[in-house]
C-alpha cells in the first residue's frame, strides 16, 4: 500500500508540511534573539521532530493492524506490525504457558483485591433444602407451568416446571426428595420451588450414549429433557436459547477473574481423571450442536489444567490480563465479535462437565463445587453441593464463629450484619433467609453490610476501601487487600466524570455513551455502540468504579430488554 503513488491531496499536504518544517528550522536562525532562547528553540524543535516521527510510526503501525483485522484470515498477507516484538528481537517469550500460540494481552481492567479467598480444601456439607428458581433466567414467563405439586416426591432429573411460552425449557430437580413448598412472590409469580432433600438418591434415566455418534436432534433432546439446556446463555441478550436455534459458536471461558472467584483448575483437579474425561465428552456433545465452532478461552497468566490445554474438538484462545479478562463477553470481543444476527452460546466449565457426565452415565449429576468466600467467614472453603442449595445456616454458623474471634468491642459487633451474595460481588445476586444459590452459580461471597454513617467519610475515609483513584490513599499500595462492605461511599449523581469506564474496559467500546443512549432510547446508537457484545457482568466493573454511583448493570438490562422488544 505504500508503493502506490500518493494522491494529489496527500502530496499537497506533504508539501505544506515540508514548508512548515523548513520555516520552523529557519526562523530561529534569522531571528536576532539571544543565544539562550535559540537553544530552547532548537532543543524543543528537535524534541517535537522526534515526537512527530515517533507518532507517525505508531499511527502507521496502528493503521496496519486495524486494516489487517478487517481482512479475512487467508488474506492477511501484511506483516502484523512494523515494530518487532520482544519475542522477535531477543527471543524472549513473555507467555511460556501459551507456547507459540497468539496471546491476547488485555491491559485495561482492575483487580479488586478482597480478603477472604477460599482455602484449597473440599468439604461435603449436608444440604437440607434446594430451590429451583424461574427468576434466575432472563425472559422467563413469571408463572411457569408446574408439573409437580407440593408434597410430591421427585427423583434427580425429574421435571418440575416449564416455561409457558416455550415448552422446551424444562427445569428439573437437582436432588431426590419431596417438594416442600412452591413459593410465590408479587402478583403470584413463582419465585422458588423448594425441595426437601432425602437421604436416598433415585435418578431418572436419560440413557447414556456417545454424543459423537448422535445427531443434533438427539443431543438437543437429551439436554432439554435433563434440564441442562437452561444453562446455555445466548448472546446477545443473555437469554436461554430456543430449541431450534443453530448457534454460530459456543464459547467457554475456563477461568474466572472476578474478585474471589473459584479456581476452575482446582475444581477440575478435584474431579480427577473422571472429570477430565467428562469435560472432553461435554465438548464432544457441544461440537455436535456447533460443529467446529466450540471455543475455549484459556489463561496465559497461570498454568491451566490439562483438561483445558489438551482439550480436543475445540479452538483455544489465550488471554492474559486482570478482571474482566476472564469474562466470556470480553474474550469474544477479541476473537469473535458478536453482531446483531449472531447467536453465540456461552457455558461455564462445570456446566460442560455436567453435560459430559449426562452422556457418560445417562443420569443428571447436578452437583457443583462452590467456592465459599468472604472476609467475614471462618473456614472458607470449596463445598460440593447440589445446584440451588440452601446455604443460609452454613453461612450463619461460619459468620458467628468468625465474629467470636473478631477483636472489635461487643457493642460494635452487635450492629454488624452480613450479606450473602450468590456469585461474585460485582454481578452476583443478594440472597436472603435460607440462602438459595442461583442454579448456575459456583461461587458465594459473604460480606459485611455497610449501613453505617461515616463522619466526613467523603473527605477523610476512616478505613481502607478498594478504589481505582489515587486520591484514596490505600489504592496506591498494590499489596493491600481489602475487607469491603456494601456501603455505596456516596450518593447517586448524574454522569460527570468521563473516561473512567473505558479505563477498566479491555474492549473497544464506549460504555458511558452506550448507557446514555439507552437512557435516551436512541435505538440506532444503542445498536451501534455495541450493546450486542455485552451483558451485565461485562460492565459490572464500570459500575464499581463509577464516581456518580450509577446503576450501570440495571440500565444495560433496560437497554437489552428494549432492543429485544424492538426485534
Amino acid at each position: 500500500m505504500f508503493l502506490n503513488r500518493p494522491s494529489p491531496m496527500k502530496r499537497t499536504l506533504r508539501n505544506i508540511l515540508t514548508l512548515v518544517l523548513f520555516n520552523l528550522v529557519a526562523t530561529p536562525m534569522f531571528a536576532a534573539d539571544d543565544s539562550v532562547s535559540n537553544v530552547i528553540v532548537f532543543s524543543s524543535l528537535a524534541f517535537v521532530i522526534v515526537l512527530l516521527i515517533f507518532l507517525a510510526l505508531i499511527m502507521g503501525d496502528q493503521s496496519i493492524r486495524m486494516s489487517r483485522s478487517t481482512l479475512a484470515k487467508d488474506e492477511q498477507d501484511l506483516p502484523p506490525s512494523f515494530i518487532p516484538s520482544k519475542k522477535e528481537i531477543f527471543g524472549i517469550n513473555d507467555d511460556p504457558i501459551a507456547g507459540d500460540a497468539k496471546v491476547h494481552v488485555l491491559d485495561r481492567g482492575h483487580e479488586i483485591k478482597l480478603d477472604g479467598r477460599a482455602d484449597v480444601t473440599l468439604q461435603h456439607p449436608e444440604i437440607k433444602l434446594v430451590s429451583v428458581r424461574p427468576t434466575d433466567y432472563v425472559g422467563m414467563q413469571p408463572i411457569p407451568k408446574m408439573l409437580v405439586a407440593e408434597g410430591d416426591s421427585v427423583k434427580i432429573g425429574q421435571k418440575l416446571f416449564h416455561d409457558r411460552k416455550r415448552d422446551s425449557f424444562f427445569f428439573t430437580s437437582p436432588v431426590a426428595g419431596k417438594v416442600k413448598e412452591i413459593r410465590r412472590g408479587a402478583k403470584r409469580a413463582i419465585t422458588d420451588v423448594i425441595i426437601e432433600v432425602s437421604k436416598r438418591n433415585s435418578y431418572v434415566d436419560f440413557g447414556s450414549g456417545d454424543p459423537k455418534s448422535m445427531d443434533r436432534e438427539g443431543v438437543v433432546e437429551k439436554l432439554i429433557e435433563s434440564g441442562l439446556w437452561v444453562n446455555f446463555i445466548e448472546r446477545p441478550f443473555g437469554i436461554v436459547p430456543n430449541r431450534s436455534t443453530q448457534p454460530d459458536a459456543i464459547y467457554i471461558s475456563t477461568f474466572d477473574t472476578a474478585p474471589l472467584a473459584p479456581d476452575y483448575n482446582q475444581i477440575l483437579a478435584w474431579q480427577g481423571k473422571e472429570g477430565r474425561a467428562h469435560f472432553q465428552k461435554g465438548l464432544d456433545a457441544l461440537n455436535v450442536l456447533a460443529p467446529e465452532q466450540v471455543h475455549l478461552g484459556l489463561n496465559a497468566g497461570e498454568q491451566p489444567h490439562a483438561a483445558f490445554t489438551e482439550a480436543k474438538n475445540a479452538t483455544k484462545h489465550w488471554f492474559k490480563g486482570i478482571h474482566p479478562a476472564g469474562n466470556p463477553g470480553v474474550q469474544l470481543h477479541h476473537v469473535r465479535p458478536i453482531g446483531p444476527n449472531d447467536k453465540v452460546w456461552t457455558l461455564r466449565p462445570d456446566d460442560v462437565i455436567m453435560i459430559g457426565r449426562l452422556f457418560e452415565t445417562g443420569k443428571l449429576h447436578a452437583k457443583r463445587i462452590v467456592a465459599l468466600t468472604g472476609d467475614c467467614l471462618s473456614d472458607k472453603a470449596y463445598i460440593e453441593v447440589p445446584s440451588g442449595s440452601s446455604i443460609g445456616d452454613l453461612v450463619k454458623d461460619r459468620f458467628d464463629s468468625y465474629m467470636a474471634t473478631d477483636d472489635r468491642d461487643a457493642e460494635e459487633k452487635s450492629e454488624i450484619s452480613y450479606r450473602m451474595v450468590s456469585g461474585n460481588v460485582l454481578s452476583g445476586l443478594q440472597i436472603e433467609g435460607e440462602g438459595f444459590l442461583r442454579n448456575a452459580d459456583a461461587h458465594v461471597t459473604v460480606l459485611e453490610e455497610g449501613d453505617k454513617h461515616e463522619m466526613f467519610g467523603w473527605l477523610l475515609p476512616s478505613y481502607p476501601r478498594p478504589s481505582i483513584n489515587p486520591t484514596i490513599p490505600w489504592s496506591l499500595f498494590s499489596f493491600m487487600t481489602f475487607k469491603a462492605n456494601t456501603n455505596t461511599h456516596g450518593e447517586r449523581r448524574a454522569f460527570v466524570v468521563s473516561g473512567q469506564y473505558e479505563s477498566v474496559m479491555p474492549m473497544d467500546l464506549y460504555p458511558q455513551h452506550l448507557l446514555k443512549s439507552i437512557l435516551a432510547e436512541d435505538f440506532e446508537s444503542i445498536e451501534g455502540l455495541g450493546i450486542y457484545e455485552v451483558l451485565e457482568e461485562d460492565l459490572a466493573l464500570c459500575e464499581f468504579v463509577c464516581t456518580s454511583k450509577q446503576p450501570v448493570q440495571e440500565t444495560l438490562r433496560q437497554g437489552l430488554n428494549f432492543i429485544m422488544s424492538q426485534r
Partner: protein
Amino acid sequence: MKLIRNFLDRIEPDKKSSPFLHTLWDGFDTFLYAPALVTKNGVHIRDGMDLKRTMIHVVLAMQLAFIAGVVNIGHQHYTAFGMYGGAFQGIGWKFAYGLLQMLPLIIVVHVVGLGIEFFFAAKKGHSIEEGFLVSAFLIPMIMPPDVPLWMVAIATAFAVIVAKEAFGGTGMNILNIALTARVFVFFAYPSEISGEICWISYDYNVLHSLLGIKAHTVDYLANLPNGGVAFDSMFDEAGQFMANSSVLIDGWSGATPLGLAANGGWSAVQEASYTIIDPVTNKAEVFQQYSTTNLLLGVMPGSIGEMNKLAVIAGALILAVSGIGSWRIMLSMVLGAVAVAILMNILGETLYPNQDHFIKVPWYYQLFMGSFLFAMAFMATDPVTASGTDLGKLFYGFGIGAVGMVVRVLNPAYPEGWMLAILFMNVFAPLIDYFVLQSNIKRREARVQVQ
C-alpha cells in the same frame, strides 16, 4: 461523635411537608457524614470515590494558586503606592489586604450560587449537588480583584440559572459555568474587566476599614520621611479611584503584560518599569515590572487565580496525577497553543520584519503570560463540558489551544482568548464526540461483518 449523629437524626425534617428545610438538612447531613446507603443488586461493593471527593480535590488543587493570588493582590496594591516594593516586604499586610478583598467576593458567589442551587434542589426533590463547589471557587479566581460585588452576584446568578439549572443541573450543562459568569461580566460590563485600571485593587472595603488595614496605609503614606502624601487625593468626590492619581509611583501602570504586548510587542513588556523611592534612605530604585521571574511567580496585575505559574502547574499536576483532570486535554492544549504560537512567530517574521509586534512575542513567553495555564488546568478539564471520549479529548484540547492563541493574538480589542476559546470548544465538544463514536461504530461494524 454519636451525639452529633443522634442529634442530626432527631431533627430531620419531614421531606414532604417541608421540602426546603429537608434539603438544607440533607445538605448539612451529607456534608458531615458519608451516608449509610448500601448497594442493591448490581454491584455489591462500590469504589471509595464519589462526586463530593472529586470536587473537593479540584478545590484543593486550586489552593496554592489562590494563596499566591491573594498575596499578589496585596503586593500590587501596596506597590502602586510605593509601599513594600520587595516581594517579601510587609507580606503579612499584603496577605491580609488580599484576603479581605477576596472574602466578600467568595461569600457573595457562594451565597448567590448555593442559594439558587438549593432552591432548585428542593424544588426538584433531589439532594444538593456538589458541582457548584468548584464553580463557586473558580468564579472569584477569574475575576479582576476590584470587580463590584453586585456585578459578580448577577453574573453568578446568570451562570447558575441559564448555563446550569436550565439544562438540568450538574452533569447536564453544555457551557462551563464559571466561564459563563465571566463572559457575562465581559459582555455586560466590559469596562470592569478590560483595560488598564481594573487589574489592580486600589480601593478599601468595609472589612479593610474595620480591621485597620486602611488606617495602616493612610498612616504609612502620611508619615513618609519625604513629606508624605495625602491619602484623600487618590479618590474623586464620588469616592471613585482616580487612575491618574498623584500618589501612584513613578512609571506605574496597571497594564497587564498582555496589554503591553498587544500595543508594543515583546519589547514593551520588557521595558515596563517603575521607580520606588526608599522612605528611609530616600534613594530611588528602578524595578523591571515584568521580568521573567515576575512572570513565573505571578507578580503582576491580572485576574486573581491565574498569577503564580508554579502554583498553577502544581495544581495541574495534582489533577493530572489523581486522574481528576484529564492529562490528555492539558497536553493537547499546550501542543495546540504552541503550534499556533510558533506559526504566529513565523508569520510575524514575514509580515513585520523590522518592527516589534504582538505576533512576534516568542511562543514560550506566550505560555507564561495571561491565564493560559490556569485555563488549561482548571477550566478546560471540566469533565462535563469537555469531550467525553479519550480521543475526542485530544482534539478538544488542541482546539482550545489553537483557537485561544488565535483569539489572543489576532483579536484587536482584547488581548486574551482562553475564556472565549473554551466556551467555543465547549459547544463543539459533542460534535467531536459524535465523530469519534461514529468511527468506533464503523470500525466495529467492519469487524463483525468479516466473521
